[in-house]
């Protein structure tokens, strides 16, 4: 009976969601939404934060993109159709006709080639944090202006979905030829909205691109991303000054907004391809010693922490290097075997103390660098500091503004001790999530800066493995090695909660806050 009821409720929910999705969109209106941090620069290929993607993504297109209601299904963005050869080594894309850049210049396959060449092989001072994703591309050919062919050196299980990455904004080849660093200071794409202004500390504005290739889209006349965070952001949402914030709310904020907005609010929730990881600066003593790093990971009671923090923060799930629930992630039975994931926290902490003693730092003291964004960085930071106190480690908490926080980890010779880093991706895919653990010379987003060829080799083997079972086994090997060495260790995985005003339609939650943000399908029912 219960089962039938659940099926009925599910069907009704789907019908309501389907009806809402199917409702005819209305054109016009200005979408005001909040963004709780500001983009450090304007280059998609060099950025990793939502603070960048939310205001900037609507100005650009990518080759493919995710289909929001059908995640993880993908659909064409600038590509009209595509074909993958039987051996999995050749990807051919047919591009859309009549696409123009915001300056009126026509789009062609040369722009795709220039964009992906910049991503996989940056030159002239360009910074690309996604080199590893495209390392398997051998060549890019453009047989005609509307066809582009990617040839791979070897099979890559994630290559097609990589082409849907929201970070791979397509730039004008002509502009890149003039100046490879043009996108760092200029915003000029083919996206549904043209750039109007960025007023630092205040807002970012986009206006409808009249020459957009999809007829009738975008529906909005424009958008304003207002830089506001914390309680003022929730107040602005409750008062209707903004209609949404697309990153995520804490459970407390959700309850408060629902109380304030009543039936004017709509809530969407999903597990999140996002975790906070502790990164140890392996170039600095004593964090060059695996025993110290492992001890600090062993001290953290992730199971109790997840349960408690889920009541006050937007973290909820315990997992390893891949999102719990994802079919290639470790099961709970496998997880508890890993150092730091045991449910016997007393035994783990006893071992941690022994390891610190053996490493000669029984009274370890260090500075923990964190981001000054309240949710979930501060609660998780406080949680970790408390966990480390319990094995006699004293920690100074350093909370930095986004730009300084990223700079502290990204500089060539970082001086931080340990930092709370984030590992958020646009989809569930080991080739993405594992990049934090790859050697630094292969992955600039590995701020631990270690070199570990064992991990590199395991990464390459799983990446080229198309058999799911074999890939799963390789991933477990990788996970064991990564968490024993503990260069970078996951803490707790996130849970995404979005509360928005009901008149905002055409936006669908996905497990990543990076995708589905081009705003081309969003409209206001007013």
């Amino acid at each position, binding site marked *: 009976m219960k089962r039938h009821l659940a099926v009925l409720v599910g069907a009704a929910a789907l019908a309501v969601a389907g009806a809402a999705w199917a409702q005819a969109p209305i054109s016009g209106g200005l979408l005001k939404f909040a963004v709780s941090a500001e983009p450090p620069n304007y280059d998609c290929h060099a950025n990793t934060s939502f603070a960048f993607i939310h205001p900037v993504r609507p100005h650009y297109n990518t080759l493919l993109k995710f289909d929001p209601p059908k995640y993880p299904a993908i659909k064409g963005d600038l590509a009209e159709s595509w074909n993958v050869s039987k051996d999995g080594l050749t990807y051919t894309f047919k591009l859309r006709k009549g696409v123009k850049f915001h300056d009126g210049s026509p789009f062609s396959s040369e722009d795709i080639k220039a964009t992906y060449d910049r991503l996989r092989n940056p030159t002239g001072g360009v910074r690309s944090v996604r080199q590893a994703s495209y390392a398997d591309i051998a060549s890019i050919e453009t047989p005609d202006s509307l066809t582009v062919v990617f040839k791979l050196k070897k099979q890559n299980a994630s290559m097609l979905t990589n082409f849907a990455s929201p970070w791979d904004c397509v730039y004008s080849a002509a502009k890149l030829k003039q100046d490879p660093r043009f996108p760092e200071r200029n915003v000029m794409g083919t996206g549904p909205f043209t750039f109007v202004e960025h007023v630092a500390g205040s807002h970012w504005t986009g206006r409808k691109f009249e020459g957009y290739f999809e007829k009738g889209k975008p529906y909005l006349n424009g958008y304003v991303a207002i830089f506001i965070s*914390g*309680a003022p952001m*929730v107040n602005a949402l409750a008062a209707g000054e903004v209609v949404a914030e697309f990153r995520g709310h*804490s459970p*407390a*904020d959700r*309850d*408060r907004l629902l*109380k304030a907005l009543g039936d004017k609010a709509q809530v969407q929730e999903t597990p999140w391809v996002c975790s906070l990881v502790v990164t140890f600066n392996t170039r600095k003593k004593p964090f060059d010693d695996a025993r110290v790093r492992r001890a600090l990971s062993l001290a953290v009671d992730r199971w*109790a*922490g997840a*349960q*408690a*923090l889920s*009541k*006050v923060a937007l973290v909820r799930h315990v997992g390893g290097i891949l999102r719990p629930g994802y079919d290639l992630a470790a099961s709970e039975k496998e997880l508890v075997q890993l150092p730091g994931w045991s449910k016997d926290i007393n035994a783990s902490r006893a071992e941690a103390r022994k390891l610190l003693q053996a490493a000669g730092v029984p009274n370890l003291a260090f500075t923990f660098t964190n981001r*000054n964004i*309240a949710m979930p960085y*501060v*609660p998780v*930071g*406080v*949680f970790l*500091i*408390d966990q480390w*106190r319990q094995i006699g480690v004293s920690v*100074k*908490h*350093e*909370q930095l503004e986004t730009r300084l926080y990223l700079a502290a980890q990204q500089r060539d010779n970082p001086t931080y001790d340990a930092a709370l880093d984030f590992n958020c991706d646009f989809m569930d895919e080991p080739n993405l999530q594992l990049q934090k653990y790859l050697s630094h010379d292969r992955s600039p987003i590995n701020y631990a800066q270690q070199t570990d060829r064992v991990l590199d080799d395991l990464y390459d083997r799983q990446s080229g493995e198309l058999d799911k079972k074999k890939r799963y086994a390789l991933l477990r090997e990788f996970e064991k090695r990564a968490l024993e060495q503990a260069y970078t260790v996951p803490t707790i995985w996130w849970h995404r909660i979005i509360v928005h005003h009901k008149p905002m339609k055409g936006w669908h939650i996905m497990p990543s806050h990076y995708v589905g943000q081009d705003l081309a399908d969003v409209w206001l029912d007013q």
Partner: protein
Amino acid sequence: MSTAATAIPYKVPKRRHPAVLFMTQQPLGAAGLVVILVMAVCAAFAPWVAPYDPLAVDYGGMLSRPSPEHWLGTDSFGRDVASRIIYGARTALAIGFIASFLGCTAGAVIGVASAYFGGKTDLIIQGLMDVLLSFPIIVLAITVVAVLGNYVVLGIDVNLIIAISVPMLPRVERVVRASALAIREMPYIDAARAAGYSHTRIIFRHIVPNVVAPYLILLTAFVAQAILAEASLSFLGLGVTEPTPSWGLMLSGAAADFYQQAPWMIVFPGIAISLGVFAFNLYGDSLRDWLDPKIKL
């Protein structure tokens, strides 16, 4: 007939202790002083006074309302609010006193020097003070802390203290300079000069003792300002960082998220700040009245 002179007994009034005099003449100031002393005792003996470790997280007791176990409730990490307020008094008083002492002393030294030497020295110093005075206290403090960042020594953020001290400096300098200017024109200063005394001797023997009263009054008044500035900077995320107990920090972050569900997270630290600032202001005002001979007359 003889008349014997009757001696009228004269009772020499008992000289009362200055503290008793202060309490009887300035009851409000005395009340302020009592609050300050209670704060100081709490701060000094926090490990014995506080019922819990202020950093101890208890996820089983998150957001507990005030009860016999937790008199002022717990916060979103299950930490005892009363214990954090008691330890927060340490942060408030340490930063308040040190920042106020540094700002007021530097201001007094510059003020006396400026008044005594006069001329171009005075002109240049007053120009610089005018620039500093053109910024509101909190804006100047935010600028200084943003430029300097954090630098913690023995658990105290030195840069935060500098950030709070700098805005006090010109305000104290002006008051002390005005007093010193009046004293500089006194005949005994001319006499000291004529006798060939050194500048140092004249300043320290004849001018400084006469500006101690305004200096002390400003010192107490600015402790209140410093406590408020520390709370404001911590509230803005520029001062003390989690998990250090600080009254201002207790009002920000999670307290703002849970103010409806757990109002005690905001109410009690707010009361602590108000009470602390009010006590120092009362005491400062009373001290001014008590030390000012014109008001006594």
